[in-house]
């Protein structure tokens, strides 16, 4: 018991408890209030149709923000500064988004406009994502926002309609899981490697029904963008959400952003955020512990994000697996990937390198990739695409000259969007192609029908682009530190 006689509560408990509109009653689960609803063009049209059919309004347009990111081209602007949308279906979908936002008074960051970008990049960037909030979006990577100590999770389109109309959701209370990463990361090892290692450890269904709280020295040492990378992929471990308790790093990041509180409101907000970390003695349903000192750059070899290993390891052998269904799954994955058991992936030639996505498209990701690329050339056999997460990231990168580093190396510098992570905008792999990708999913066909993806960090992606093959960034000359 804590001093006030209550059971010690976790960060998740505090955020959940403070948003209960109605506790479970008469067989109905908790009704949870949603502070911020982010909307994009792909998962919202049918929800607006429901609202129209029922004659409903959007209850709180002032708690709603829309952007265009999934089906938008990332090809350079034309001479008039316009991003053309050649795909008729995508253009129609974007037009529907525009009309829906206009009809329902929702602010929209239109394609190519100054603040447009990937939905999970713009929320934090604008200071809309704040500790202690509940945030949803029709997108599984909404877990990204949990890096700020928000409870943020993906929902389906029916639930998008629920939130548009009522700003509330019916929710079963999930279980809690602590993932503690002790110690310090070695050079060349990043937030992306942490989360790939966590998912390899717990498996892609390992977090199902749970909200993960990431903690420990290695997590605390990460900047906000690294924490976002970690929380982003919580869903790839099956978790409902991922969270990191707010601290000075969080508060410094938010301070001064467009929607951040100011003046006295700021002081009150910070005081409230300081109360959010879990109480002494709070317990979790499950705990997983990793030692950062043991982590190395990671790479996936299979067709789900749980099929990952240290970049220096060899592809596992299905015949050594005891469980028959696991053996069949690995057989199927290696067959799709065209890989052999026992093979090392180091030196495996790749055709495409993609730096981008809501996992790794922020300024710090681009800086890391550029650090490796500076003064080097992308191998002739490789197409490298660098896709900033938002227009703001793009401008910042250009102000720092990163675009010139990428261009000089022979990489493509693109407009902001989801791009080849979901491959529905024309940016895609061709059948059989291999890619090192900083995105979040290596599912069959995810980056283009028949395409084969190796998930890795921006450092590994950049090193592999230069060598034309999967490369341990630590082996590059001058990259010892």
């Amino acid at each position, binding site marked *: 018991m804590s001093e006030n006689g209550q059971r010690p509560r976790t960060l998740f408990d505090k955020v959940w408890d*403070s948003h209960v*509109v*109605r506790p479970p009653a008469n067989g*109905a*689960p908790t*009704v949870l209030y949603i*502070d911020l609803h982010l909307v994009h063009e792909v*998962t919202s*049209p*049918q929800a607006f*149709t*429901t609202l129209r059919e029922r004659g*409903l309004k959007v*209850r709180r*347009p002032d*708690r709603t923000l829309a952007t265009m990111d999934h*089906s938008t081209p990332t090809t350079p602007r034309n001479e008039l500064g316009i991003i053309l949308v050649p*795909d008729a*279906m995508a253009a*129609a*979908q974007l037009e529907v988004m525009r009309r829906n936002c206009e009809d329902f*008074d929702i*602010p929209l960051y239109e394609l190519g406009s100054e603040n447009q970008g990937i939905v999970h990049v713009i929320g934090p960037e604008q200071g809309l994502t704040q500790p202690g*909030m509940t945030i949803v979006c029709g997108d*599984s990577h909404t877990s990204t926002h949990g890096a700020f100590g928000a409870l943020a999770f*993906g*929902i*389906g*389109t*029916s*639930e998008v309609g*629920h939130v548009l*109309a*009522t*700003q*509330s959701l*019916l929710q079963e209370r*999930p279980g809690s899981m602590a993932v503690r990463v002790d110690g310090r990361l070695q050079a060349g090892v990043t937030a992306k490697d942490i989360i790939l290692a966590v998912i390899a450890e717990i498996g*892609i*269904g390992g977090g199902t029904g749970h909200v993960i709280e990431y903690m420990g020295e290695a997590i605390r040492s990460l900047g906000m963008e690294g924490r976002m990378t970690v929380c982003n992929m919580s869903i790839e471990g*099956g978790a409902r959400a991922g969270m990191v308790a707010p601290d000075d790093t969080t508060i410094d990041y938010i301070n001064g952003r*467009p*929607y951040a*509180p100011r003046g006295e409101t700021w002081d009150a907000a910070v005081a409230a955020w300081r109360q959010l970390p879990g109480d002494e003695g709070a317990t979790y349903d499950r705990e997983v512990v990793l030692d950062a000192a043991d982590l190395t750059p990671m790479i996936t070899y299979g067709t*789900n994000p*749980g099929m990952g290993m240290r970049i220096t390891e060899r592809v596992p052998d299905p015949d050594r697996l005891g469980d028959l*269904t696991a053996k*069949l*799954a690995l057989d*199927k994955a290696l067959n799709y990937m065209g890989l052999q058991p026992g093979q090392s992936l180091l030196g495996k030639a790749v055709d495409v390198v993609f730096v981008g996505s809501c996992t790794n498209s922020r300024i710090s990701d681009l800086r890391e990739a550029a650090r490796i690329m500076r003064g080097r050339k992308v191998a002739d056999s490789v197409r490298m695409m660098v896709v900033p997460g938002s227009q703001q990231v793009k401008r910042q990168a250009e102000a720092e000259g990163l675009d010139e580093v990428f261009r000089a190396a022979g990489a493509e510098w693109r407009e902001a969007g989801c791009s080849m992570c979901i*491959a*529905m905008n024309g940016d895609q792999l061709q*059948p059989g192609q291999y890619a090192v990708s900083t995105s979040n*999913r290596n*599912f*069959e*066909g*995810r980056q283009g*029908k*028949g395409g084969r993806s190796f998930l890795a960090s921006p450092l590994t992606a950049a090193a592999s682009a230069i060598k034309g093959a999967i490369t341990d960034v630590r082996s590059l000359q001058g990259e010892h530190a």
Partner: protein
Amino acid sequence: MEPVTAFSGQIVAMPINDIDTDQIIPARFLKTTDSAGLGKNLFADWRYEVDGTPRADFVLNQPRHAHATVLVAGDNFGCGSSREHAPWALRGAGFRAVVSTSFADIFRNNALQNGLLPLQVDEETQQQLISLAQEDAGTTVAVDLETQTLTLPDGRDVGFPIDGFARHCLLNGIDQLGFLQSLEDDIFAWEESHPARVNTLASA
């Protein structure tokens, strides 16, 4: 919404673990603004050759399984993307239930919103159904939502868990949106006592 109560249906087996929603409906079919018409692209990349011809060896293309309405899958069905297009595609192709040992959280929610039953069973039942479907395409199971039972061809009844409120909504053809709307007073009261932190309409 049409009430869901009890039905019988032929089963078809896809004994693959971790079937993700990108397989159920690939992203390139998500440019639609409609929820209808997705059935023909269910499992599109497994079902069709690059030129669009159906793959004869893919189970859902086999004429003997043409009438199946209950999909028996491997563990952790529906992981990955939150796209509700996945249950829309399954419903569009005539499926009324999916049997697995576990379901991804968002898929389960989405399925329940669309009258598609996620039937969570033990591994033994799952394996038994997979064998039965592979031996005899005519194998039929009965599903009763009221009693939460799945009746196997040998007469054995297997229970399945389902969220009580979702069950209530399905049995009565009520959708959750209507219920949330009825809580207007509670929602308003919460808002009154919790001032908004951000206003997206305020020019930043």
